[in-house]
């Protein structure tokens, strides 16, 4: 038999969080309509939350039994966590997505998407700026025509209101 796998950095914290989440969900589900009737609106949510809590407990036990995450000397658990799960590029790209979503309405779909695409391609390591811009613009034009013109999905116009 192979020795049990080591825990991943942050795994224990994550499953403990899931356990807590399951417990909260169960508590919230019981407050929907209590235990009054077999066909109450809260019946299935309570069952689902209970299943979640029990399975989270089993996952937590299994995780606890495995040896802890490997932390080489000179490093720390949080550093290992950042290295394995949140490398810089993931954090940067996720932040970019968040910015994009908040810019979607004020700047409008076309402008915010263009900025996001060009910045995103740069962050992910494509350094041919002109190529990036051309690809982005062409794709956006296609998306715009399909959604807005053919399917009358009203995309946010933003700063270009009145021009498009």
């Amino acid at each position, binding site marked *: 038999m192979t020795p049990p796998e080591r825990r991943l950095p942050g795994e224990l914290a994550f499953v403990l969080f899931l356990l807590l989440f399951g417990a909260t969900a169960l508590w919230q*589900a019981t407050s929907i309509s209590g235990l009054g009737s077999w066909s109450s609106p809260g019946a299935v949510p309570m069952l*689902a939350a209970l*299943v979640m809590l029990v399975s989270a407990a089993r*996952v937590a036990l299994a995780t606890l039994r495995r040896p802890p995450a490997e932390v080489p000397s000179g490093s720390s658990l949080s550093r290992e966590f950042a290295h394995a799960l949140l490398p810089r590029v993931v954090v940067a790209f996720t932040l970019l997505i968040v910015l994009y979503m908040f810019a979607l309405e004020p700047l409008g779909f076309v402008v915010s998407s263009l900025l996001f695409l060009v910045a995103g*391609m740069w962050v992910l390591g494509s350094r041919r700026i002109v190529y990036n811009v051309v690809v982005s613009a062409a794709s956006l034009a296609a998306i715009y025509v*399909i959604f807005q013109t053919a399917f009358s999905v009203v995309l946010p116009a933003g700063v270009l209101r009145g021009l498009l």
Partner: protein
Amino acid sequence: MPEAVSYFFMSWTSPYLLFLTAAGTFAGIYVGAIPGLSVTMAVSILISFTFKWNVNEALALIAGIYLGGVYGGSRTAILLNIPGAPAAIATALDGYPLAKRGEAGSAIGLTTVVSVLGAFIGIFALAVGAPVLSNLALLFAPRDYLLLAIWGILLVGSLSGKSLAKGVFAGALGVLIGMIGLDPMTAEGRFTYGSVQLTSGVPYVAAMIGFFGVSEVLAQLHFLHVTPVKQDVRRIVPPWGLLKKHLPLAGRCSAIGTVIGALPGAGGDIAALMAYDHARRTTKHPSRPFGEGAYEGLVAPESANNSAVPGAYIPMLTLGIPGDAVTAVIIGALYIHGLKPGPMLMIETPHLFWFCVGNLVLANLFLLPLGLSGIRIFAKIVETPKAILLPLILVLSAVGTYAIENNPVHVYWMLAFGVTGYFLKMYGFQVGPVILGIILGPLIDVSYRRAMISAADEPLAFLAEFFTSPISAILVAALAITVLSQTRLWAATVGRLRRAPAT
């Protein structure tokens, strides 16, 4: 009968109807492939558009879009892991791993052929057995929908990956997400916390795109330095040997798809998941392990979801009852065009039935060349450098999510689900069960409660009802066998029985 034949071939002989059917099928493939554009949406838009047309023209266009659209959902599921429509969720499970292996071309080719095959089986059932099948569909009581949904949720077992407990957790999380919003039966709020946004629930497509697409984009960031696999596009049309091997499975899954499609309370998404489940249970030696690019994992859901299209026509044409959201819109269109969908439709306007059957056959014939063309170009999408492709996928996901209800909040949901899905994946949870839970959770909830209310809220009477009708009894037996067959006792007994005659 000669009249029926002439109506059957009506759209074949009129150049204009022929054109509309082909155009509809072509457009449908792309509507289906683009996440956020749904067949229901396209058909609803067309209805006001076709208002001044004659009803046959409208129906020809709609049939093409419907059939093409359900097929088209597989395209993005295979290439980008984003199911273009809920009916293609099961397709992503083995289709995307195939694309990662460089087999996107043959995966789409096989998908196309089995989709066409599935639809033909469904159309055949519609043509010869519509009245029988629609009366069978009526016999499904709320408790039977509950059994069906429980059967479907058992798929969690095979979607869990290494840890069953993690799969069960993910499935229950999905069910819970599906419960958010006003309860459809009593209008009481569940997990709404006074927020109006939450009263209408979590948008299903935002969850699908977030958990599948966005979480995959984030996970792919770990492999930026890996050059994308070269796609092998020499062989698009699947070789006869491969097809022949999968014919029995495709046939069985088409039967599943037709029946589930004909049920008024379940559609192509559930049909595809049930078929995938069926394939996993009955295939002893898949071409590869399921989840890693098994051809069986493509054949099953794709034949089932396309056979569910003619399946949904069955109750629509015979009883005026919609089999799913799209047929509901078509029924509205028939009313607007002065027809009266209902049990009299077949009697008062029998030509309409044969026109629809003939037209579906035609659309399905178009689907084969239209689906098989352009695959080489599509497969190349996967070869695009990740630094270019990943931001583009994200924009497409965002606009698709936004398009469902023109609601920017849905885009935030999508990102939240994407990040959650990313962490779940990283720690060995699968996202498949979450989506399964979101789709089946609401069905379980309402069917269970309807069945319980019908039994006057008495648990014993509720249980007793499962043995009062042949359909329930058959479903209970099938469910019991499915559950038992996963236990060791079963394997031991079967093993002993097998050995017995030999000794």
